[in-house]
């Protein structure tokens, strides 16, 4: 049924195209997957945050969510499974002007990469981690993830999953993150605001995005399309910013508590280390000289054989 306002536009382009790699479209995500929505809200959030696009870098791991880096027109890195966070830490520490985002999935960040996540949160490195939680390992065909709810089916749990799943926001908050939030892909505007806040906030920011996986999770568990799963997420979602993030796990039928649970200002890793070393060394009266004259620093094991000429 044609309509005179639904113009097939050749002259106007989609407003997000300046931040997308249009030469790689269409993307590989399935019909009904929430990842496309996560990317659109990310692009909107980045525009709202007002950060310089040239100075924004995005790092992702392996998996369906890991492909996000390939579709965004920023300095983007598609690294190995689980190791996006230490890579992003190295990138940020080597160039502190960058705004670094890590965009990866629940298995990539919490299974193989779990150790790196808790240490980066503990150190409060100034990176922003966006974890898209689809409760399953999508790319490889639907295996169990550490977030798969109790009783759900997956391809490596054909009789149902009987392992207790992780509560991602609880883990991030307990490890020391400065900003912890959880939203679903249906909360488009709140997610945009969250991402804009995280981009401008210093410290380790963690956002969990609950997203429907149409092809594996929905098909193996409740049937229907990605839209049906998203509608269910939206029905079950409530917003409670005061909730204790460690007390709000996700299961097959309970409420999905969304909100911004932790929003604090803590000194970052670099501020702590720089400040601490400076304080310690300022006690020496020749601190300025030590900084510029590092030949005076000797390890207790090297004794000068002959002293050298002037510096």
């Amino acid at each position: 049924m044609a309509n005179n306002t639904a113009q097939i536009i050749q002259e106007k382009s989609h407003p997000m195209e300046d931040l997308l790699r249009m030469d790689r479209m269409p993307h590989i995500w399935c019909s009904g997957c929430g990842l496309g929505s996560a990317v659109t809200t990310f692009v909107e959030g980045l525009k709202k945050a007002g950060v310089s696009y040239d100075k924004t870098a995005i790092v992702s791991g392996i998996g369906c969510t890991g492909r996000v880096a390939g579709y965004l027109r920023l300095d983007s890195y598609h690294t190995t499974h689980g190791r996006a966070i230490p890579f992003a830490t190295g990138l940020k520490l080597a160039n502190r002007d960058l705004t670094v985002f890590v965009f990866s999935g629940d298995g990539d960040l919490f299974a193989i990469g779990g150790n790196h996540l808790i240490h980066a949160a503990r150190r409060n490195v100034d990176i922003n981690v966006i974890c898209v939680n689809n409760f399953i390992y999508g790319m490889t065909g639907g295996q169990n993830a550490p977030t798969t709810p109790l009783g759900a089916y997956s391809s490596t749990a054909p009789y149902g999953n009987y392992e207790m799943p992780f509560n991602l926001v609880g883990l991030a908050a307990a490890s020391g993150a400065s900003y912890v939030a959880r939203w679903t892909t249906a909360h488009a505007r709140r997610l945009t605001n969250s991402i804009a806040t995280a981009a401008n906030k210093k410290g380790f920011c963690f956002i969990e995005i609950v997203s429907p996986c149409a092809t594996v999770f929905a098909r193996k568990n409740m049937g229907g399309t990605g839209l049906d799963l998203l509608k269910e997420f939206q029905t079950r979602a409530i917003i409670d910013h005061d909730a204790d993030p460690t007390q709000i796990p996700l299961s097959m039928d309970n409420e999905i508590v969304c909100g911004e649970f932790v929003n604090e200002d803590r000194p970052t890793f670099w501020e702590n280390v720089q400040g601490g070393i400076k304080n310690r060394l300022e006690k020496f009266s020749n601190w300025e000289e030590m900084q510029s004259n590092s030949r005076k620093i000797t390890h207790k094991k090297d004794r000068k054989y002959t002293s050298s000429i002037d510096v």
Partner: protein
Amino acid sequence: MRYWEKPFGKEKPKTIRGEIHIIPDRCKGCSFCIEYCPRDVLELSKEFNKKGYHPPVVAKPDRCTFCGLCEMICPDFAIFVTEKEE
């Protein structure tokens, strides 16, 4: 008739209207936009696009208020809204 001050309802209120642009060949038929439009502007078309999906089509163009939710929730960057010039 001279008024001392303009009554509140004298001026016609300015309403914002949106103009929807759909790129049908990018659509993968997920129906997120149709479901989440708060004003029920869109509906599924009966035609197929190049990939065999049914893209959305604007059923009630006058009801669009330029909220932009369809643009933000579309996973395939296949729909966007611009403000309709009066």
